[in-house]
Each structure stands twice: as C-alpha cells, then as structure tokens.
C-alpha cells in the first residue's frame, strides 16, 4: 500500500497512545505548555501522562525537530509543532486511518457490525 506521508516509525511514532503521538496531536491545535498539554491529552485521549513521561517525550520530540519551544518569561514554556512534526503526525494519522479502514473492511466482509 502506498504511503502518503513520512514513515511513522522513522519519526519515532509507533502507536496511537504513544506519548509522542499524543503530544503532537495536542500541539496540532496550537502551542501549549506542559500542564496544558497534560490536561488536553487527558481530555481527548483519556490518557494521563505523568510529568516524567511527558517531559521524556518532549525531550525526544525536540531532539528530532518535531516540536520547538517558544520564548517565555515564565517557567511554563510553551511548545509548538514544527513543519516536520506536522508531517510526521500526518503520516502517523494516515497509518492509523489505513489500519482502521482495513479493520472496518474486514469486519464488514466477515459479517461483523461496527
């Protein structure tokens, strides 16, 4: 099956509930600092990311150039998604969509209901 975006694995994005995927998804709607990210992720995914896990993922995402910090006079520094991050998220979303469609198709073929 042809790929439409950057390979999910290459960007370090593996599963939908991986902290990097959740953080990129949250930042896709605008810059946020750590606490706002944590609350947003809990709201839209039901996943509670502890401070350690959140900042571990933020560190890796920044190293890969998928997010970047914004200037802040506060200790609560906001982050925004970069162009590369948006492309990586688009690839991950496309992969997830393909998987969801494949699952839906197979369930339909086998007579299951979704």
């Amino acid at each position: 099956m042809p790929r439409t975006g950057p390979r999910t694995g290459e960007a370090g994005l593996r599963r939908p509930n991986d902290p990097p995927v959740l953080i990129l998804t949250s930042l896709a709607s605008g810059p946020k600092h750590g606490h706002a990210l944590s609350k947003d992720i809990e709201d839209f995914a039901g996943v509670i990311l502890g401070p350690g896990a959140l900042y571990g993922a933020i560190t890796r995402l920044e190293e890969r150039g998928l997010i970047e910090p914004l200037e802040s006079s506060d200790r609560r520094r906001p982050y925004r998604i970069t162009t590369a991050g948006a492309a990586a998220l688009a690839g991950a979303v496309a992969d997830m969509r393909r998987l969801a469609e494949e699952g839906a198709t197979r369930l339909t073929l086998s007579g299951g209901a979704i």
Partner: protein
Amino acid sequence: MGPRADAGGRAPHRSAGLLRWYPATWRERYGDELDALMADSLGGRPPSPRFRLSIAWAGLRERAHGSGLVGDGSPPAERVRGGSLLVLCAWTAFVVGGVGFSKTSEHFVGTVPASGRPLSTGSFDAVQVLASVGAVLVVLGAVLVLPAFVRFLGAGGWPAIRRRVLWAGAATVVTVAAVIPLGVIAHRLNSAQRNGADWHYSVGFAVVALASVATLALWTAAAVAAVQRMELRTGLVVAESALATALAAVMVLITGSTALWWGSMAFSAPWFLQGTSTGTPGSPFELNIVVAMALMLGATLAAGFGVVRMSRSWSRLLSG
C-alpha cells in the same frame, strides 16, 4: 499559569529534589519547566511514592539516554561508548560479588579433603586466572584512554569531574584509614573470632567492606563522568569496545566457573559452605555465596546488554 505559583511564576518546591534523578545537562535545559509542571500536577500536595518513583524512573531513563544506553537518537559513537561504560560499571559490581565469593572460598583447599574437590579446585583456579585477565583488560582500557584524559584535563575538563574525584579520594582515605587498624586487630584474633565470634571485629569488617564498595563505586562514577566528556577518536572508541566485549566474555566465564565451584562444593562438601564441622550435612545455600552469585549474574547480564548495545552500532560507526 497554575493558581499556586507566586508572582514570579516560581512554584512551590516540594518536589524540586526529585530533579536530582535527571542528569545536570538535562536539568539546565528542562529542569525549571519540569519543576513547574510537577508543582501544577501536585497542586500543593506532597508527592506520593508512585509519583516519586515515576520521576525517578524517567530521570534514570534520561541518564541512560544521555549515556547512549537507550534510544536511537544518539550517534553510533555515543552508543558504543555508552555500552563500553556499562560494561565497566557492571565489572565494578562484579568485583564486589567476586570479593564475596573470595571470602566464601577462603581456605577451602586446606579444609576440604583433596579427594572431595577435584572439580572445585579446577573451577577455583579458572576463576583466579580469569579474574587476572579481567583486571588486565580494565588496566589496558585505562592506559589506552590516558592520553585523551590528559588532553581533557588540559582543555579545562577538571571542574566537570572535580566533585566526583574528591568524593572518591575522600572515600579512599577513609577506607585506608579503617583497613589499617582492622588489619592490626585481625592479626591478634584467631580464625573463629575473625569469622563471627568477635562481634566488634565483625562490625568493623562490615564497615570496611561497605567503605570499600563505596570507594570502588565512586571511582567508577568518576571514571564514567570523565570518559563521557572526553573527545575520543573512532579508533579508540572501537578499541575500548573490543576490550569491553572481551571483559564481558571474561565475566561470563567467571560466573560459569563460580557456579561450577558452588555446585561441586554443594555436592561434595556442603558443610564447608555453612562453616560447620567436616562431613556435617547442610544446605549449600549459604547467604554469602548466594548474594555473590546474584551480584555476578546480574552484572554479567548488564554487561551482556552493553555488548548487544555496542554490537548494534559497530557497523554504522565503522562505516561512517
């Protein structure tokens, strides 16, 4: 901004000490942010044990990342260097286990009849020879890295390792200062008194043993801190990783030989392991040898992880 922050945006510091789990370079970049997030998350409550554990785990993972031990974000040379240093740390723990084995097996040749120890004598000799080989490999690794260490010091690297070296030096002084009187006292005691009958000596021995372990660990930490900061040529990184791989192989062989010694003693002379009279039946699971074996096995597994980590980066390191 969280409601509990002060006017300057500085949150209460009930969890600030947890940041020490993270490496200094990481703290400089993200420490304030994580501290603020922890304060927001806790909302003025003290951190729970689970919260502390999660931060400690995340901090240790960050240290492992910084050392090139986990993750694929660091360059191949860093990953190989991290693997080599892990083997060195594992060797330190292994030496502690080896000292425990040495204490257990002390005088066994003179105590156990020759007919009951052909296998144990051979495995014991193998442990001694292999331990010497391991020590030579470590010394060789240190000699190879010495010129880079001198350059590191010449380039102003001393402040970065000063605190660790001073701690290690102080621990060495304390250990030596404790060993000398203990040695004098030991010469005035008989074998039974040295092996638990005199509790004053036992306490002193335990203190010296702990001080020795601390000294060894502190010097290893100082060496790791220095090597992590040095500029190393690719050839040197490869040479050090080859020595580390050989050292890991030596650890496997020593662990196997020690297990063989233990097994043969359990079969032919379990009374020796328990320190009871000749021929007395008993369990071979004496605490000292169990702990020593566990340490050696754990250290060998850690060294194996280091070798696997290195081997996955060798081809990329040599090609590029």
